[in-house]
């Protein structure tokens, strides 16, 4: 009698059928289990776009599998083209995924402390293979995500898809919009450079305007009177933990509601007041497998290719300004672009009204919109007022965004503006981007720009002269002088001097330029 007996069934199969047929059969079996119902042949058939067998084996993964049970088995043919959805909701989830993956990679090299955060960024860009690409993808994906979510909301409004029965879906979408904005905003601070510190400082200064508890809200957000160790840690934890967690939950709720109610059909395709999206006759069904799945693969490939090409051959790179310095406010600092409208509103007057009350009302209007606007028809012809309001809002937000930029109603002195045109404080700018060897030492007058000894210098002096002309009224009888000195090996000191009133008044600024600093690109 044997003490124990080992029986390996596959050996019996190999003995009976041979090695290769057995391995093929086992692989097929494993694939069928992993896909919750599709074998290799069926997957190839899906990818080829063959019509399904009867009964359709491709509905099984939706019934039995975890991931596919979240996706519908079929869609209405009418929502399959680019219009009416423009795939914007799908794209938002795509970018959320990209942000999560690249963000997790970046987390490996990042410590949320003002002592090392900036150095970490430099290391990611100069000492981690593909580190800069990950950072660029993360930043670019964030910009796209904000744009896509905003456009998704606009599209949902235009097609009237927020109307009954999808009011709550819209509501959760509003939450997701705010989460997207704050996810992007909280990530803005983490590089701890001048750009991030001051953009976030401006954004957070709105908190201070909160009536009655402004001081407390401000302390809570910044972790102190100014951003420092505590503020950075708070924004980091919001960015990598709290906000993503809430966002994932709301994406789940939002998408569940989308599936429950099905995608709304184009407004003209159903009777006024009816919602027929869930009643999908057999002949108008477009099955997830193969139609939607292959299209999604295609979109993932195309968008990922676009992102990677943009940050490589496209030359798009996330900016990194000098180390954050709470003592030095760069001229022309702005909030991130999606909060410029808020900065524009603040220029209209009272900080409490335009910074807190008015935006608060606007945000709340978004949330209650489907419960206030209960007109039964989704057709464009019946919604002239609503669509006009949407158009006016887009124009108004664009105008406010423009007003938020330094081009509108920012009073700084003309002499500083002239110098800042050559050496801006929010990005490298023309002087730093000029090749080092094109800055021969000497003293140059902007009026003599035509005689400059190098092409780069000629362009700089011409710009200098052009800027002085722009401020002829503020700077009468002005003259621009640029002095370039060899300061160390590989280091030049450039002094920009603006003289006006025939030399009675002057303003000067020094800039040091190193030959390896690599601003030009």
């Amino acid at each position, binding site marked *: 009698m044997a003490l124990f007996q080992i029986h390996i069934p596959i050996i019996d199969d190999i003995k009976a059928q041979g090695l290769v047929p057995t391995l093929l059969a086992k692989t097929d079996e494993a694939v069928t289990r992993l896909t919750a119902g599709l074998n290799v042949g069926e997957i190839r058939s899906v990818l080829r776009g063959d019509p399904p067998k009867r009964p359709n084996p491709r509905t099984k993964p939706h019934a039995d599998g975890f991931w596919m049970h979240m996706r519908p088995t079929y869609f209405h043919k009418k929502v399959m083209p680019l219009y009416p959805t423009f795939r914007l909701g799908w794209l938002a989830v795509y970018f959320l995924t990209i942000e999560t993956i690249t963000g997790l990679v970046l987390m490996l090299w990042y410590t949320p402390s003002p002592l090392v955060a900036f150095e970490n960024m430099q290391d990611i860009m100069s*000492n981690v293979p593909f580190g800069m690409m990950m950072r660029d993808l993360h930043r670019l994906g964030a910009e796209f995500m904000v744009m896509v979510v905003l456009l998704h909301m606009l599209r949902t409004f235009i097609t009237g898809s927020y109307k009954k029965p999808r009011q709550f879906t819209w509501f959760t979408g509003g939450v997701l919009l705010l989460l997207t904005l704050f996810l992007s905003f909280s990530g803005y601070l983490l590089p701890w450079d001048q750009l991030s510190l001051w953009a976030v400082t401006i954004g957070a200064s709105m908190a201070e305007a909160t009536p009655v508890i402004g001081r407390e809200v401000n302390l809570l957000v910044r972790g102190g009177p100014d951003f420092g160790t505590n503020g950075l840690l708070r924004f980091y934890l919001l960015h990598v933990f709290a906000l993503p967690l809430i966002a994932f939950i709301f994406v789940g709720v939002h998408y569940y509601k989308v599936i429950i109610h099905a995608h709304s059909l184009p407004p003209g395709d159903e009777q006024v007041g009816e919602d027929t999206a869930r009643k999908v006759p057999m002949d108008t069904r477009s099955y997830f497998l193969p139609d939607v799945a292959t299209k999604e693969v295609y979109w993932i490939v195309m968008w990922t*290719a676009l992102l990677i*090409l943009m940050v*490589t051959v496209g030359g798009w790179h996330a900016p990194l300004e000098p180390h954050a310095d709470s003592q030095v406010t760069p001229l022309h600092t702005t909030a991130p672009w999606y909060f410029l409208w808020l900065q524009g509103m603040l220029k209209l007057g009272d900080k409490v009204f335009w910074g807190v009350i008015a935006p608060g009302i606007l945000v709340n209007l978004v949330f209650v919109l489907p419960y206030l606007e209960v007109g039964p028809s989704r057709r464009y012809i019946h919604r002239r007022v609503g669509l006009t309001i949407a158009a006016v809002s887009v124009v108004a937000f664009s105008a406010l965004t423009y007003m938020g930029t330094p081009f509108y109603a920012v009073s700084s002195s003309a002499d500083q503006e002239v110098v800042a045109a050559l050496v801006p404080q929010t990005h490298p700018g023309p002087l730093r981007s000029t090749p080092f060897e094109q800055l021969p030492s000497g003293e140059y007058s902007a009026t003599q720009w035509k005689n400059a000894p190098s092409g780069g210098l000629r362009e700089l002096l011409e710009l200098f002269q052009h800027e002085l002309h722009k401020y002829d009224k503020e700077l009468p009888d002005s003259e621009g002088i640029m002095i370039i000195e060899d300061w*160390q090996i*590989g*280091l030049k000191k450039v002094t920009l001097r603006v003289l006006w009133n025939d030399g009675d008044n002057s303003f000067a600024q020094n800039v040091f330029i190193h030959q390896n600093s690599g601003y030009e690109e």
Partner: protein
Amino acid sequence: MTWRTAVGMLAVVLTSIVTAFWLINEPARMAEAAEGFEGRSIEAGADIFENNCTRCHGPQGQGLPGLAPGLNIPEMFDGARLAEVGWAGSLHDFAYATISGGRPMPSAGTTYPQRMPTWSQEFGGPLRIDQVRDLTNFVLNWGLAYEQGVNPTVPEVATIPVESVGTDINTPELPSGDAAAGEELTTTLGCVACHIHTDVGPAWLAEGDPNGEGIGSRAATRISASEYTGTAITAEQYLRESIVLPDAFVVDSYPPSTMVMTYGETLSKQYLANLIAYLVTLK
């Protein structure tokens, strides 16, 4: 579906090729980026040096005699300075540690009247750690010139004049001074490093004085005051005495032997005349 397959495959191939090239170039790109950050660090350090260090160490780090040692000198980079102070670590550590902590006690063999202040926030100074690092990179970048055998151009006014004026307040007789040149000397010689006591500028101006008097007026009245211990009988002599013999008379509330004692040796007749010509005009 076929055109999508073709375009999709093309995108995958294209992106893979680009990514492969990116991978091949990544070590070179990273090295260049690292050099770039070091260059920017030197730029930032130059700015910090200009704003904080030039008053004592001179605009080009050549040092100011009697006030602070040179940094842009061969001894700094050939090991002589490290040996002199008995530093066992690297030059980088020496520079970083000295900037961070300052010099609370005099270095071996030096008798500078002022101690170097602490700079790093770690030890209560004003600069962040990254700024101390930038400053260190800038200072050590002078070493490149010595490695390559290039002599730095040191500004003419800061070099020690051949014939010194001495410490007698009557002889030799001074030539006529140029007040404008004297004003410039107060910066290049490092006077303003210590004499900035007011929000409006150097202490010899009238603006910061409680009685609204410039040093020219103060000099004229002090020589006749009862507590005056010096030998000057004119305002010009008083100023000359204050510069070349600082301890002859110390104004009440200031400790003695605080000021640099070596100006008698380091100043020429013309420089001293220029300085006095400037200071007497400050009424």
